[in-house]
């Protein structure tokens, strides 16, 4: 195989691996947006708190799987709690109100982590033993395989949940039309709380998958949030599968742009997906896979 093609394929594979993190974050954003119409800017920092919690439990001697499960359970409670306490009273207020509150939660959670776990010397234990496979000259690490496997699992679980479970169908009904859903015995409020909880779990999973590859810092989730927002916007803010596709697209674009466009380089890496989103939205204001929703006065 020509060397250029190898480099290209390597970048694509690495891009898909990064993209699966963004996809998980994007799914988290979409789950909240489609149920309650809020874009939760605080998701990254909610995940951050869960990462530090899992790290702390592991540092205290808990087995890693147990620490992670505990952190994911905490994520659910955190997400559900924020919906119940902060977001539900703002349901019928202008969208600006919930956006500002989400930004407030962002600052509060971020600084709580900074106060409890200052500095940047913590290392998260590896989730899988480091192994390298080589396929047609393209290196694929065990971490990459794990990321892709988790992403596939998430996509399958979402599909099954929204298509084939009573709860998933009820959730779709409640978010599509809360007023009518009430008449067939659905309580939208409980399902919204559930949606926020699930969303927080997805965000926390993205964080925990990222954690072993870097030192833990309070800024670590911010790029993931931005890429996740790009992915969700690109895929359409109301379509979880669009969000997954968007995540992979963002991951691949980011890698290819910094490799092949000399002006982008490594310092402007983050700019590539942002510019991609901007251009895509100009032509398709509802995202690539989003549906246009009728607007009522």
């Amino acid at each position, binding site marked *: 195989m020509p060397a250029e093609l190898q480099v290209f394929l390597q970048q694509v594979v690495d891009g898909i691996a990064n993209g699966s993190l963004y996809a998980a974050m994007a799914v988290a954003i979409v789950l909240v947006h489609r149920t309650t119409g809020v874009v939760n800017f605080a998701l990254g920092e909610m995940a951050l708190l869960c990462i530090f919690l899992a790290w702390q439990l592991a540092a205290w001697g808990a087995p890693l799987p147990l620490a992670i499960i505990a952190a994911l359970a905490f994520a659910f409670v955190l997400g559900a709690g924020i919906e119940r306490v902060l977001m539900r009273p703002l349901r019928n207020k202008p969208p600006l109100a919930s956006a500002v509150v989400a*930004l407030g939660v962002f600052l*509060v959670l971020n600084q709580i982590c900074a*106060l409890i776990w200052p500095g940047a010397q913590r290392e998260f234990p590896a989730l899988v033993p480091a192994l390298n496979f080589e396929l047609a000259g393209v290196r694929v690490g065990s971490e990459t395989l794990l990321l892709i496997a988790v992403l596939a699992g998430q996509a399958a679980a979402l599909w099954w949940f929204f298509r084939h479970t009573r709860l998933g169908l009820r959730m779709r009904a409640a978010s599509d039309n809360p007023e009518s859903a009430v008449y067939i015995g659905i309580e939208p409020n409980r399902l919204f709380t559930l949606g926020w909880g699930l969303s927080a779990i997805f965000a926390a999973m993205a964080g925990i998958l990222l954690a072993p590859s870097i030192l833990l810092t309070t800024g670590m989730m911010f790029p993931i949030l931005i890429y996740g*927002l790009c992915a969700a916007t690109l895929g359409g803010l109301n379509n979880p599968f669009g969000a997954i596709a968007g995540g992979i697209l963002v991951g691949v674009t980011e890698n290819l742009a910094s490799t092949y466009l000399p002006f982008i380089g490594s310092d402007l890496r983050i*700019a590539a997906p*942002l510019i991609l989103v901007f251009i895509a939205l100009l032509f398709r204001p509802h995202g690539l896979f989003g549906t246009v929703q009728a607007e009522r006065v």
Partner: protein
Amino acid sequence: MTLNNKTIAMLLAAAFLLALAAPWLIPQYRIDRLTLALIYGAATIGLVIITGRAGQLSIGHSAFFGLGAYTTGILLARDIMPLPLALLAAALAGGVLGLVFGKPALKLRGFQLAIVTAALAIVFPLLLPRFSNLTGGHAGLAIPPQFAPESWGLSSVSWMYMVTVVVVGMLVFVAWAVTRNRLGRALDAIRLSELTARSMGIDVAGYKLAAFTVSAICAGSAGGLYAAAIGFIAPEAFGLLINLTFLAALMVGGSRVIAGALIGGLFVQLVPEVAAGLSQAWTQLLFGAILIVVVFFLPGGLVSLISIMQRKVSRSTEAAAATSADTTDSD
């Protein structure tokens, strides 16, 4: 007591004169803090127009602020223009970027607009080091202190303060003049429902773009003042975080009132000042908590306290009048 326009105009003129006299009333070391508060206030005026009135959330005003700062900074550092012209250039630069960016971006609404404006805010500081022969790159750009004509006998700090008061006064006037009539009503209609506004024949795209441009001009001018007053600018000062400061100022002051922006600016400058014993982390934590608390308990911001008190006062005077009427009746 209701205030008519004449009294309001007189009160404003008095406040303006009082603000100008501040260097003789307040100790020198506090003046530059006041200057900064006014600068934050000026940037927040921009948000009052586009976010408070028109309902379009922007997390990207740091780019207009930063472009204004670098425009004034470069012009002053290279001694190309005197301060007033350099500030005018900052306003123009902010306005032009607002127009060019807003034209396509404002097709988007709500959170999608928030996301593309955030994109602008993230990309802007990354681009600065690419033009390091102009901007000084990561090392930043030093700007010589500005002085009043020698015979005035003013310190550099007092002079920058007075320039700021005049510029902010002009911005307040412009913002008030453009939002008091047709444009202001159109923006209110757009905020409440873009669809309804359009069906009433309001040129939604045009008014939104006009509002965005005016608000970018405010942010650009504020940035110009910032560069001249601080005397040093670097890319980190214009990151995404400063937008949260502007947003906090907007929400705390009162999102739809120009005076609220100035109160908010004072607030975001004073809180870290008062909390000086606290670390950076606690200050940010406090900011976040304030954002949440204000949305829940004081959605109209601090300015709404005035009307709430006014209502209370008028109710108690009415009650007093009613009681006195009762007594006269019984006589």
